[in-house]
């Protein structure tokens, strides 16, 4: 913590340290890359002496970690973003090298290289699955749940009775495990993708309602009184005071809901599909020990999840007034 206070310890003040850091990182990344490339992939040739390789790879990882630690010093933009990127590179290369050194069978844990090649060879099927899970189920369900949730929140705020009678149930329902809900809805609506969309909409609904209500009620008494003295109409008050005050809460809820949406779409697919979707693919390939396809599906699901989250975050950044 004190590192922030003393500029003498930042990289900018010590160019020699920066050079050393860069050298450490280079040795770490380069060594791991070399190890990963020269080691025979599991299944090809005889497994080398694991203990010597372990020592070497751990040493390289340590060197890389020192580099990352150095890169994280200072306050520049690079110091805030580069370490994360380097950790990913080190983690992926280290995994590849370790898996190869220990000759772990691909049926158990596939190396990152194999996952990438599976991602490429099965791309058309996996992209189709991603489309079904992400666009048809998660996105559509998210939109439906959000619209419904906001409408419900407006009703709850408007009618005091609903606030006291309905809102506690919404809070209660959000502690229900979505997995228990999914099979019932899938059985009721059918095996096609709309059933999963409904599951997503239901899971998105509760956090949005709770967040939006809390936001709409967060307007300060003072501002409301001020609007009253201005003789503002209720519509004006709502538009100019309540809605802007509610937006941070709503977006907080939407961010939570965006990750929930994808998760519930995948879980719902575990309970029956007509043969499409990432959840279905994962379930069926685990059963056949095709773990490189499973990991490839997980990679795609992760990318979709991160993109979804980033989408909501960028909408938030655009719509929310900057805090001064």
């Amino acid at each position: 913590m004190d590192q922030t206070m003393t500029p003498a310890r930042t990289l900018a003040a010590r160019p020699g340290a920066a050079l050393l850091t860069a050298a450490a990182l280079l040795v770490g990344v380069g060594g791991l890359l070399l190890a990963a490339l020269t080691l025979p992939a599991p299944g090809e040739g005889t497994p080398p002496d694991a203990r010597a390789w372990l020592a070497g790879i751990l040493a390289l990882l340590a060197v890389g970690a020192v580099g990352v630690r150095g890169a994280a010093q200072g306050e520049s933009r690079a110091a805030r973003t580069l370490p994360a990127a380097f950790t990913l590179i080190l983690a992926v290369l280290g995994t590849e090298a370790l898996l190869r050194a220990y000759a772990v069978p691909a049926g158990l844990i596939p190396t990152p290289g194999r996952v990438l090649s599976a991602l490429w060879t099965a791309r058309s099927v996996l992209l189709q699955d991603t489309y079904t899970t992400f666009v048809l189920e998660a996105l559509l369900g998210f939109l439906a749940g959000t619209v419904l949730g906001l409408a419900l929140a407006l009703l709850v705020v408007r009618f005091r009775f609903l606030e006291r009678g309905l809102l506690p149930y919404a809070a209660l329902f959000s502690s229900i495990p979505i997995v228990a809900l999914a099979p019932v809805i899938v059985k009721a609506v059918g095996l096609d993708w709309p059933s999963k969309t409904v599951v997503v909409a239901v899971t998105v609904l509760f956090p949005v309602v709770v967040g939006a209500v809390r936001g709409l009620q967060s307007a300060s008494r003072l501002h409301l009184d001020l609007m009253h003295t201005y003789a503002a109409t209720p519509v004006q008050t709502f538009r100019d005071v309540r809605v802007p005050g509610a937006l941070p809460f709503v977006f907080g809820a939407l961010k939570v809901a965006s990750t929930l949406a994808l998760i519930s779409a995948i879980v719902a697919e575990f309970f029956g599909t007509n043969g499409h979707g990432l959840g279905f693919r994962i379930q069926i390939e685990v059963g056949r020990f095709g773990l490189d396809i499973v990991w490839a599906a997980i990679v795609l699901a992760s990318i979709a999840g991160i993109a979804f989250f980033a989408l909501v975050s960028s909408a938030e950044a655009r719509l929310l007034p900057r805090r001064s």
Partner: protein
Amino acid sequence: MTTLRPSRVAGLGPMLIVALIAAALYWPLMLAANVGPAGRTLASGAELNCRTALACASQLRNPVVPAPAQLAQGFVRLSTPVTSPLALPYNVGVTAGETLLGLLLATVTGIGLALLLVASRAFERATLPWLVASQTVPVVAIAPMLAVLLGQYGVQGFLPKAIIAAYIAFFPVAVGMSRGLRSADPLHLDLMRTYHASPAQTYRLLRFPASLPHLFTALKVAVTSALVGSIVAEISTISFSGLGKMLAENSRASDTVALWVIMAYGALLGVTLVALVNALERWVTPWTRR
């Protein structure tokens, strides 16, 4: 959640009325949902001891929405005998045990991570973006794979499910705890410094107590995700007990009434677990109560 309820007693009346309205609407909604399938079943000439589609709506073997009588029967069928390993109470207990063990693991991991995050800025910058990204990743997708992997290394029984539950639940704990550890009053921190307190003393006397409210808020989120984790783990591993196993079995057998009953039990378990964490919070941090 507590902020939503200004007063417990005053809120009960409207809640009761809404519950009554929902109960009153249940019968017509059930009929409306089941009439279509009932008509189709009748048209297919299946053995049903009823004439019209409307009369059959409450007697379908696989109803879309089960009739109250069917639900009650399902409850009795799945809950008795109470001690049987095939009945729901036992399986709910198993899932609850896995969830709590998972929550414990998640808490230990989360607090450890939080300590690292607070202690080292390099660690925070190098890993926090990936920890955040790991949450936008649908973590349940990893559960089936993790289950296979742990099974290969001979980890069996309670533990793999608890590990998967912990894997899903550790993040809120880590973030909440690190926020909590940083939430100590700067004035108090300065005071500790003037007392020449050691870092360990500062943590024990100031930072940990200050972090507890944050920790419990995080635990309430974590316990529901841990429950989801253990159920998903039960679905995707070869398990012989637990809610997830019952869900998977009855889903395969298309026993809709059983699915509804299991859902009700799952909801009950979720609410109970959150209430448990609430009770623990009130016991550990009595000073946060007004």
